């Protein structure tokens, strides 16, 4: 029996670990936003976002596949980064 395949959009966010600095975010805050007059911005952190469209039977399969490939292709380095994966629907 052939199962139904759907296309899911999976979002992967990679960022420096929370305990580590993010010099890029710091510069954006200090030299662009604050100097530009936006004093109500308290903090900025930058991250990389990957959107992947994958075929899978369900959410879980989509997420598992992306987790696996992020580890295998070393899309991020667990020593330095955190990586969060979310399925955003079909």
């Amino acid at each position, binding site marked *: 029996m052939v199962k139904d395949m759907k296309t899911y959009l999976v979002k992967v966010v990679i960022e420096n670990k929370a305990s580590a600095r993010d010099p890029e975010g710091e*510069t*954006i805050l200090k*030299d662009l936003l604050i100097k*530009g007059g936006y004093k109500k911005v308290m903090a900025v952190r930058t991250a990389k976002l990957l959107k992947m469209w994958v075929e899978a039977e369900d959410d879980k399969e989509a997420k598992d596949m992306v987790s696996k490939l992020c580890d295998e292709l070393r899309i991020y380095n667990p020593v330095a980064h955190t990586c969060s994966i979310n399925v955003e629907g079909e």
Partner: protein
Amino acid sequence: MKVAIIQFPGSNCDFDTLHVLNKVMNVKANLVWHKSDDLRDYDAVILPGGFSYGDRLRAGIIAAYSPVMKEVRRMAKDGYPILGICNGFQILIESGLLPGALLRNSSLKFICKWVNLSVISNKAIFTHKIKKNNLLRMPIAHNEGRYFIEEDDLKELYKRDQIVLKYADEYGKINGRSNPNGSIDNIAGICNDEGNVFGLMPHPERASEKLLSPFDSDDGKMIFSSMIEYVKER
């Protein structure tokens, strides 16, 4: 005549450009800190290469808001020569003085090597003394140099002869093989409609002394001497 070389935090070709203007071109030039709000003493402005604000967010964007840029805009409007080299080109783009965008190289790597540039237009003050189709040898050294602009605006650039330099091979052929960074139509440098604001990714200041060229060339000088002659004739 006197040239202002603007120093932003993170500029790193400022001293090199100063050296070439003073020692090779024999022209007066000063380094001007980006906080300055007065360039009235100067006849031309160079935004040098480097990594202003560490290229954070996007190369050139933060420097585009420096206090000195107000003066640079005024001078651009008044027809003074404004030259942006590498990061300086990125700053001109981000400050809206030149159209388009400079995106990350398609190889996803920083590229440092010598290339050949074909002179497409001599509308720019900086190429008006150079023959069209001349080949200039200069090095590139950048991460974000892939020139991009939407189709319609590109047509407009062609129509107004604003495309000044294109990457070519050693025989002058302009094709995918001679495109180091994925720029649209191999574009390496453009000018504004008036021809007084010019930005390019390659480094003329690194190509102005035969000693430093693998080809015993000093083609970079032509860019500076065109500018100098223009100011003298003005």
